[in-house]
C-alpha cells in the first residue's frame, strides 16, 4: 500500500515566544517492508537552525531552533510511504518463549543489542501486577508467537479504549487501576508485561490508515498518531503487535520511529523561552491512500 501522510502540530501561545528549540520524530524509517519515497518537514516560522540526524536507534531526529519572536509554532511533516505487510518466519515464532529472551541467547549476534529493550524504562514500569498479568499467558515452553498474540488479545479485551482516562504522565499502575487507556498506554502495558519476563520489546510510533465506514467518504484530518509494540523473535527480527486494534501490524501501518518507550520518540518535543502563561496544542493527522 502507498500512503501520503500529513502530520501537523501547532502550538499557540498567549504571548511572544522569543526562542523555540525542538526535536521531532516525524520522518518514517526506511525498512525492509517500508520505503519512504518522499518526505518534507516544514517548521514555521522558519528556523535559524534545522538539521536532521540518526539517533542511537537509527530513527531520524530533526532538530530545529526558531529565534524570531512568534506566538504560533507550526510543524508540518508530509511523507509518501510504501508499505508491505512484514513477513515472519513461522518456525521462529514457535521458539519456546524462554528462549526468546536475549539473556538466554548469547549464540545470536543481535541478542546483546536486543537486551536494551528487555530492561525497564521510565514509562513502562515493570510492576508486580504487570508481571502477574503476563504470566498467565507464559506457560513453560509455550511458543513465543502464540504467547505474545495472546497477551495482545487479552489487553484488547480487558482494557477499554478511553481518551479521557489517561494523560502523558500515566503510569502502568494507573492503566491497571483504570482498566482503560489509549494506544500509547496499551503499548506501554505490553512492554511492561513482556519485559518483566525477560523478553525484549520495543515501543513503536507511527500511523494507522483508517478505513471510513462503508458508504462514507474519508474525512481528511480525522486520523491520529498511533503506537504499538514489537517483540524480539530470535533469528527473525521483531514481531509487531497492536493491542489497541488486536491485530498484527500489517501494510496499513506506517512505522516512524522506535525506542524504549514514548519518551525516546515523541513526535515533537521542545523548550521555549517566553513569558506566556498558556498554550494550545492542535494536532492534525491524515493518512491518505495513494492509488497508482
Amino acid at each position: 500500500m502507498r500512503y501520503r501522510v500529513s502530520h501537523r502540530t501547532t502550538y499557540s501561545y498567549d504571548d511572544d515566544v522569543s526562542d523555540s528549540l525542538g526535536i521531532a520524530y516525524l520522518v518514517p524509517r526506511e525498512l525492509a517492508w517500508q520505503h519512504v519515497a518522499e518526505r518534507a518537514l516544514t517548521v514555521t516560522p522558519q528556523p535559524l537552525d534545522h538539521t536532521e540526524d540518526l539517533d542511537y536507534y537509527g530513527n531520524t531526529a530533526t532538530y530545529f531552533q526558531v529565534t524570531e519572536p512568534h506566538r504560533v509554532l507550526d510543524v508540518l511533516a508530509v511523507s509518501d510511504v510504501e508499505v508491505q505487510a512484514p513477513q515472519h518466519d513461522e518456525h521462529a515464532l514457535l521458539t519456546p518463549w524462554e528462549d526468546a529472551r536475549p539473556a538466554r541467547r548469547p549464540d545470536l549476534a543481535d541478542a546483546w543489542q536486543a537486551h536494551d529493550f528487555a530492561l525497564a524504562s521510565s514509562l513502562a514500569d515493570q510492576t508486580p501486577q504487570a508481571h502477574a498479568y503476563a504470566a498467565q499467558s507464559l506457560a513453560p515452553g509455550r511458543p513465543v508467537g502464540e504467547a505474545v498474540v495472546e497477551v495482545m488479545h487479552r489487553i484488547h479485551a480487558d482494557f477499554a479504549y478511553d481518551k479521557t482516562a489517561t494523560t502523558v504522565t500515566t503510569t502502568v499502575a494507573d492503566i491497571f487501576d483504570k482498566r482503560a487507556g489509549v494506544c500509547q498506554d496499551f503499548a506501554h502495558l505490553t512492554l511492561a508485561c513482556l519485559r518483566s519476563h525477560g523478553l525484549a520489546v520495543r515501543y513503536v510510533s507511527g500511523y494507522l490508515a483508517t478505513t471510513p465506514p462503508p458508504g462514507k467518504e474519508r474525512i481528511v484530518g480525522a486520523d491520529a498518531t498511533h503506537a504499538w509494540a514489537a517483540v524480539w523473535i530470535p533469528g527473525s527480527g521483531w514481531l509487531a503487535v497492536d493491542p489497541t486494534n488486536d491485530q498484527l501490524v500489517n501494510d496499513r501501518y506506517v512505522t516512524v520511529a522506535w525506542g524504549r518507550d514514548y519518551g525516546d520518540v515523541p513526535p515533537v518535543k521542545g523548550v521555549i523561552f517566553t513569558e506566556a502563561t498558556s498554550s494550545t496544542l492542535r494536532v492534525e493527522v491524515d493518512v491518505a491512500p495513494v492509488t497508482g
Partner: protein
Amino acid sequence: MTALRDYSAAVTQPTLGGGAVPYDEVVAPDGGLRPGWRMLAEGAIQLTEADLRRVGGDIERFLANDGVTYTVPEHDPGPWRLDPVPLVLDAAEWAPLEVGLAQRAELLNAILVDLYGPQRLLSSGVLPPAVVFAHEGFLRVSARASAGDPHPLLLSAADLGRNAAGEWRVLADRAQAPSGIGYAMENRRVISRVMPELYRQAGLHRMAPFFQALRATLIDSAPEHAPNPRVVVLSPGTLSETAYDQAFVASSLGFPLVEGSDLVMRDGAVWMRVFGRLERVDVILRRVDAAWSDSLELRKGSQLGVAGLSEAVRRGSVRVVNGLGAGVLENPGLLPYLSAMCEQLLDEPLRLPSVQTYWTGDERSMAYVLDHLDGLAVRSIDQSVDLEHHGPDRLRELIRAEPHRYVGQELLPLSQSPTLDPRGVHPQTVTLRTFTLRYGSTYRPLVGGLATVMTDDRVPSSKDVWVLKASPDDPDQGLPDVLPLTDVRAPAAMVPRVLEDMFWFGRYAERAEDMLRLVLTAHASAEDFRSRPHTAGGASLAVLMSAIGRLSGSRHGTEQLDENFRSLLLDAHRPGSVAQSISALRDAAQSVRDQLSPDTWQAFSWTERASAHLSTYHYSHQVAESAAQMLTGVLSLQGVTANMMRDPGWRMICAGRAVERGLQLCHLLSATTTVRRGIDIDRDVNTAVLAATESAVTHRRRYRGYVRLTGVLELLLTDADNPRSLASGIDEMRQHLAAMPESTGSTRPERLLDDLLDELERVDIAALTAIEGERRPHLDRFLTGYIGQLTRFADAVGEMHFAGSPVPRSFGFATVTE
C-alpha cells in the same frame, strides 16, 4: 608526653577483645612510625595535644576567614572541616599507586570511547550489556554515530581505602563531575599557613603545577575553530553541595563561574549573554550532572543546564568536560569486569584492583550475594534506588525482581589515622580521594589528594594529603615543564546575573552600613536618655527609633529598646535589619565569589563573631560594641571594592551603593525632619541625623557647630563636595551608568538620572524648609517624590542591565489540547 607518642602508645596496646587492629596510617604494628612519619618525626613528635588544639583553632579561623563552606544536602551551608593531622604517604608507597591510578584513568577513557562508539565490549560479551543499558549514566543522546565528541575523559577521581593487608583498593570511580580538588587546594593553603615549619620540613609535592596543567588541558580541549578559547565553569548555583569547591576551582584557574541561565544555544553553539551581546563559549567545565544539563534532550524542566547542549556537543561546537556520557563510568557494576576490559582494551593486567564487587545480574554472583548479605554492602548501580533503610528480606526481594540493577560489595576494614576531636587525638577511619588529569596524551594523578575521616559526631572532616618527595630535587607533581599561571584573574563573566548580584552587593553593603550607623547613634542616645523620656534628648531618641522603625519595621515598644537593638542586629528575618542585609549581602557575594577578592570573606567572619558575642553577652553596652565591630567588617568591604578592576561589575557595585545611600538618606530625613518639634528637640534630632550620616565633622567645620536644618539639608542634599550627599550620589550614579557598555547617554536609566539631577539643581533649600503649622510640606513632598524616582531608577537599571531571558519551559506547558 606528646600527642603522637600518646597516640602511638594507645593504638599499639593490645585490645581486650583481641580483635583485628586496623591498619594505622602513622604507627606500624611494631609500635614504630610508618616511613613517611619517620621523615617528619622531629617536628611532628614534639607537637603536644595543646599545640594541635591551637592549630585546630587556627584552622577553623582561617577557613572561616576564607568563607569555606560545605553544604550537606537540604541544609544551610556549614563550615568546611579540616583536621590538623595530615595523611602522609612516602614516595615508595605512592609510586605504585600513581602508576595504578594513571592506568585506571586510561582504562576508563578507553571504556568510555568504546561504549559511546563501537560497543565492542558489549558485542564481544566481555561486559554484560545490561550493566550499561540499565545505567542512568548511559546517555543514548551521546551515543549516536554522528556524535562529534570523541569523549575523552579529562578529569576523573577515585575513592580509595585500604584492605586488611593495608593495600589500597578503589572503592568508587568519579567521572561525572568530580568534586573536591578545590577543597584539596584550600586544605593545603590552610595547613601550610598554620604549621609552616612542619610543612617546610616535609619536602612534599606542591599542588600548584597540577592546577596549571588542568588549566592548560581545558584550554587545549577547545574545538579546533577557537583560537582564543573561552572556558567557563558551569555551576548548579550557590545552593550546590560543593559551591565553594566550584568557585575556588573557577577563580584558581581564572575561568568565569557561570550558571545555566547565563548561557544560551544559537546556531548549534553555546553562547554567553554579555551586555546584550552573545559571546561564544568553547569549553564548559561541567559541575552540573549530565541528566540536568539539557532540558531539551535530557531531564525535562531542568533549569541548571543549557537547552540544546547535547546537540551542540554532538556537532563538536563546544567541548563539555567531562563529556555528558561520562557518568556511565561511575557504575559499580563495571568493577567485576574491569580486569577483563583492561586486558581487552589496553592489553595489560589491571594494576590497581577495586574492592571486590559482585554484579547480581550475573546468576552466580547473585547467588553469592544473596547468601552473604551480612558481609556485603548492596548498592544500586546508579544510586537510583535508596537502599539505606531496607532489611535483608527486602533487599533479597529487590535484587530478585531486577538483579541487573544491583551490586554487592565487600566491606573493607579501611585504615585509621589520628584525628583531633574535643576529647583528644583518636584513631578514625580514613578514605582517600585522588584526582587524575589527562595532560597531553597521558594521565597524571595529582600527587596528593583529599582524605576524609568520619568523626565521632558523624560529621565528616577532611585531611590534607602529603605525598613526600623521594628527593628534594624532584619537580613538584613530576611536572617540571608546566608553565606557571601568569595573572590568571578570571575574565569577568559580565552576564546579567552577575551584574545584578554586584548591584545588590553594593546595595546591601550600604544598607547594612547605614543601619549600623543609625543603630549606633540611637544606642548612644539611648544610653543617655532612656530613663528621661520627657527631656529633649528623650524625645529625640523617640524620633530616631521611629525612623528605625520606618526602615526596618517596628516590632518593639519604646520600653523594649535593648530587644529592639538586638533584633536589628541579629534577626535575619526582620526586613531592613542589619542581620538581614548582611545575610543577603553574603548570598550575593557567594554567587559572584569568583569575581571577588578572598578578603571579602573576612568581613563576614567579623560580623559573625560580633553576632556571636552579642548573642552570648546580654549587657546593653555589648550592643554598641558588636554594632561597631560589625561596622568595621562591613566597612572593610569598601577596601575590597576599592581594589577591584574598574570593570562593569565594579561599577554596578558602586551604583548600587549610591542608589541605596540616596534612598536611606531620603527615608531618614523624611522620618526626622519633616515635622517641627521645638528648637531643643529639633537640634538634637538634627545632630543625630548628622552623626548617622557620617557628616557631623564636616558640618562642625563648615557651620561651626551651629545646627540648623537648612545647613543640615544643604550638606546632605545639595553639597556635591560631601560624599554622603544626595548630589554626590547622583553624580556617582551618572558616572558609573555612563561607563556601562550598553549606555548611549539616552537609555532610560540615564534619562531618569538626568531628571533626578535636574530636580536637585532646582532645589531651593529655604523654600523647602518652609513651615505650615507643625509640618514642612515642601520638604515632605520633595523627599517622597525623590524616593519614588530613585526606586524607578533602580528598577530601570535592572530592566536595562540585568534582564536575562525568560525561564525555559517545555513545549505545550499548561496545554489545552484541541
